[in-house]
């Protein structure tokens, strides 16, 4: 399952930093996938770190141990009345903008003290949920 999933993702080019997905799969998954790549953590660590933090966060927050719920929480935190649904079928319209908005949200989390500590890492609540989402999508 892991290898099949990886190939889908690689083909779709949804790993953060790559081009917009060329091959679509389930709209739900693709939308969620766009939320599942915390940019700073991706830069400073590896996908293993993201997955590790995600696993740990879900253990500590069992009520958020669901991909759709995590996606909704991330978007709800954005507080945007026109927030695109994670269920939209053409998420490629917003990848760059979404990534920028998520980055702003993460910084806003830090400014507002909305942080969590996961395995000693001081990260934004949004980041933690992104990690959790990643750990669910990339099992």
């Amino acid at each position, binding site marked *: 399952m892991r290898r099949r999933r990886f190939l889908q993702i690689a083909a779709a080019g949804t790993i953060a930093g790559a081009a917009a997905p060329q091959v679509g799969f389930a709209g739900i998954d693709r939308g969620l996938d766009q939320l599942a790549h915390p940019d*700073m*953590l991706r*830069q*400073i*660590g590896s996908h293993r770190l993201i997955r590790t933090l995600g696993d740990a966060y879900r253990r500590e927050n069992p009520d958020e141990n669901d991909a759709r719920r995590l996606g909704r929480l991330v978007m709800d935190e954005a507080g945007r009345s026109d927030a695109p649904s994670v269920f939209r079928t053409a998420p490629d319209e917003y990848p760059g903008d979404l990534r920028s908005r998520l*980055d702003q949200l*993460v*910084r806003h*989390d*830090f*400014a507002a*003290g909305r*942080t969590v*500590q996961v*395995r*000693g*890492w*001081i*990260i*934004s609540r949004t980041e933690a949920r992104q990690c959790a989402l990643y750990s669910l999508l990339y099992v």
Partner: protein
Amino acid sequence: MHTDARGLDDNSLIEGDICIIGAGAAGISMALDWIDSGHDVVLLEGGGFEIEADIQALYHGENVGQRYYPLVSSRLHYFGGTTGHWAGFCSTLDPIDFEERDWIPYSGWPIRRDDLDPFYIRAQRLLELGPYEYDASYWEGRDPELTRLPLDPARVWTKMWQFSPPTRFGRRYREDIVGAENIHLYTYANVVSIEANEPVSSIDGLTVRCLNGKQHRVRARYYMLACGAIQNARLLLASTSRAPNGIGNDHDLVGRFFMEHPEVFSAYLVLPTAAPLKMYLWTPLRTEARGELAISAEQQSTQRILNCTTSLAPRPETERPAMIDWFSDDPAAMAEFWEDMEEQYGSLEPGSIETVPFSEYTMQARLEQSPNPDSRVMLDEERDALGVPRVKLDWRLTELDKRSIRRTHELIGEEVGRAGVGRVRLMDWLLTDDPMWPSILGGGWHHMGTTRMHDDPRQGVVDADCKVHGLANLFVAGSAVFPTAGAANPTLTLVAMTLRLSDHVKELVS
């Protein structure tokens, strides 16, 4: 002038206008200030001009509390004192360090930070530092490679340190002291007792002993105790001929409130791209000034934490052992270490520094220890070769200490995240709420607080002029008088305080 006390006739009388007990940073600073003053100054040093094992052995003591460095080697017992192995770190205390803070019991000085500014300027010269500039913007203007992290200074700011060469007071000022006609330096003159008059309202004299068995008497109008916080307390507690609990100890305060700067690896700063953080790096004997990340006074108040800074160092591939794990009980070892360093770096052009970009930095906290009356220097039953009771150090920390270190790094982590600089990861030992400290916890060899200042004799040993309460002519010089420690290394402040005391005593003598 210099006299080896061992060569005096037995039971000699040594007299002067003022007597300074101890020739370390405080004692020598004061003596220098009295050169050509027209007054006779007796400067007593228990050791000689080199570290000697039998003299150093007088400093043996026992650590009975939190793990600490060997007492025999964390202080040096010779002319120049512990400047013989210090690293040269100099910074000022912050204004908040002098304030009474309702979340920190026993906080507050009887003086303000700006009372010390004129003396800080004078201290800079003695410590061979640069201009009296501790604002990061000044250093950024001098070197474009020095750049602060883009953090909000209302939350996390960059506190600056300057580096003394380091000034080895024994080497640097020996000629000045020995060549001064009105300064009478007596080496190998260990004070073993401070004698008060019958009502214990003033000091009559001192008893000095040498290891060769000779004993002498010292008399002066005014006496300055300048042996360091541990030895100062020891001498006061051991002087019981007229005061059963020790000189200046009517309220059981002498020796209490011993403070160090807990220094401990606490977290990691991880950057998305490797960068040379030259502003925050220190290369021994090379760096002129560098910054440490500090928590603003406003945040300290809001968070109800102690003052704390964290320094950055590139994270090595193999974790460095903590200093407390390799610090030797051989007193000469650190002095020799620095001599080797000076030889190694001495050929390089001053001011040049290598910086390599790193993506991971170790964060080491330096904490203002919470004043704690149970953290204390006491006398042991065992006596040294001169018959003076040895000391026991019971260094104790509190819940507030650990919580402050943790909160400091959490705040830095939040600010680093907000600024998009990177991420902070706390070390495992900080993730628990228990009161335990890791074995790597050390200190800076900063001994403070054992004869703390307070206007009320029930709350302090000395008053705002560093005079021992109840005694007309006994003063304490140095960091023993600090009521709180701040997060800055104490040397610059203890020299400044000593110069302030010196001015005061000059007024008295006049």
